């Protein structure tokens, strides 16, 4: 149980840390000043979530690892974030599509996790739920604006939706670790979220005049540390300081 809980909290932490890292890459380079601020804001939410979750994971593990050791001193194959969050920022449409697909899942996810038997997770969820509501609103508005904007923005937004679609199925994956914790009332069963997620996606894409991709193969692997080739490069940058100067206080 402890092992599963540790793995579960780590997944959530990795999701948040990696997406926060990606959003941090935008800083100073966004299409408008408002979005520079907006994307940084969302990035900050994720980093905050990552900190709380890593800290809790470290407590569960009980080996004295803190948030930074878990974030900066694990190897690629030990990271268990989903593949969606590690995808490169691409153009603004891709960043928005990634955010939208993820937030459309995370909002109902956190809402349900508030009822977890694990009180720490429930408390983290209560805070994260509010943040996810904003992330979903922000990204959905942009999906609509870009989808129903100009010819070029429509095409880019459609391309982005299609490029990332293959990574959305992993959000609903249930493996043994998760099944055990669901049975125990600790983790959220993602299956019932599927309908809600599909409805959100359908509603927003349709308002955006975008075609909804067909159900297809769901690329997975992230939860067991099999990432896309982008991930190693992200890690080499993110972890560089802790790797180059081990064991120091910053």
């Amino acid at each position, binding site marked *: 149980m402890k092992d599963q809980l540790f793995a579960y909290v780590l997944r959530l932490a990795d999701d948040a840390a990696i997406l926060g890292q990606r959003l941090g890459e935008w800083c100073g380079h966004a299409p408008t000043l408002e979005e520079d601020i907006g994307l940084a804001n969302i990035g900050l939410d994720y980093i905050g979530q990552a900190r709380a979750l890593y800290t809790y994971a470290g407590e569960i593990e009980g080996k004295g690892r803190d948030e930074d050791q878990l974030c900066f001193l694990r190897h690629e194959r030990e990271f268990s974030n989903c593949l969606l969050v590690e995808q490169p920022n691409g153009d603004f449409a891709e960043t928005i599509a990634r955010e939208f697909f993820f937030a459309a899942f995370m909002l109902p996810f956190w809402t349900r996790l508030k009822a977890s038997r694990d009180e720490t997770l429930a408390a983290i969820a209560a805070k994260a739920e509010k943040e996810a509501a904003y992330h979903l609103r922000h990204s959905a508005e942009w999906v609509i604006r870009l989808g129903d904007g100009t010819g070029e923005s429509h095409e880019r937004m459609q391309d982005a939706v299609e490029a990332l679609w293959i990574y959305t199925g992993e959000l609903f994956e249930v493996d043994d670790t998760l099944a055990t914790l669901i049975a125990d009332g600790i983790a959220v069963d993602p299956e019932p979220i599927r309908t809600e997620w599909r409805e959100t996606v359908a509603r927003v894409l349709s308002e955006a005049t975008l075609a909804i991709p067909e159900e297809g193969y769901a690329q997975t692997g992230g939860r067991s540390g099999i990432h896309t080739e982008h991930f190693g490069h992200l890690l080499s940058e993110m972890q560089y300081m*802790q790797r180059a100067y081990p064991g120091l206080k910053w």
Partner: protein
Amino acid sequence: AEREAAFQGRIDAEEKIEPNDWMPEAYRKTLVRQISQHAHSEIVGMLPEGNWITRAPTLKRKAALLAKVQDEGGHGLYLYSAAETLGVSREELTEQLLSGKAKYSSIFNYPTLTWADIGAIGWLVDGAAIMNQIPLCRCSFGPYSRAMIRICKEESFHQRQGYELLLTMCRSSEEQKAMVQDALNRWWWPSLMMFGPSDKDSLHSAQSMAWKIKRFTNDELRQKFVDATVPQAHFLGLTIPDEDLKLNEETGHWEYGEIDWSEFARVLKGDGPCNRQRMKARRKAHAEGGWVREAALAYAEKRAARRAAKSAAA
């Protein structure tokens, strides 16, 4: 001339000038130049620090840095808004920045090479900025003065945060302390240059003083900064990279060596270490974001048209 006198009278009485009040064209121009330059500095200033967001050594520092850079974006927004009350649009101002017509603070043309630079920017660059900006909180132009009050509060938080970052490093290991010393060596003189040319070479100053846009001379502010900063450096156990630096026991001021004004002039002219990269980064962001801004505009127009059609039908 009568209006001018009345205007000066209001200034002398420390009244705030508001956007709809009459003002001399030169006053407006001076303010537009200064406020927009300040806004541009905030925007360009996001880049050197932004360079380290993806490599911050801890999550706490990453969050603090991201928040700081975000604050700078926010300052840019207030300041562009303040400038807009004087009748220039953000688009115009951005165009001036990207075409190279408008200036921004030269300090942002220096590179951030190590993590200690992030602390040094907070401590020295924000520290110098605050020295410049505190008197601006009492600037005669209302919107600028109010923007500055808000900005100063945040900057002073950033400055303390930067100093604390360096303190942590200096106390953690000799290796890190050496990094901090190296950062101080590289940022010290450029920070002093932030106050602009020496009083004897400074343009615009007298009129700006009369208009209470400026309340202290460049050299006065620079001296204040040196006096405040030297003891802080000593507290960190660092050496200021200035062999001529010494405390004048009589005046109580720290006297500093000759500033290399040729470097100042060169960087201002465009040949600093990062001038090209900064402009390239801003132009790239602007160019690559073009389709997004167009789409947002197109969508807003479509929506407005739909609403109009609806209400016409109703």
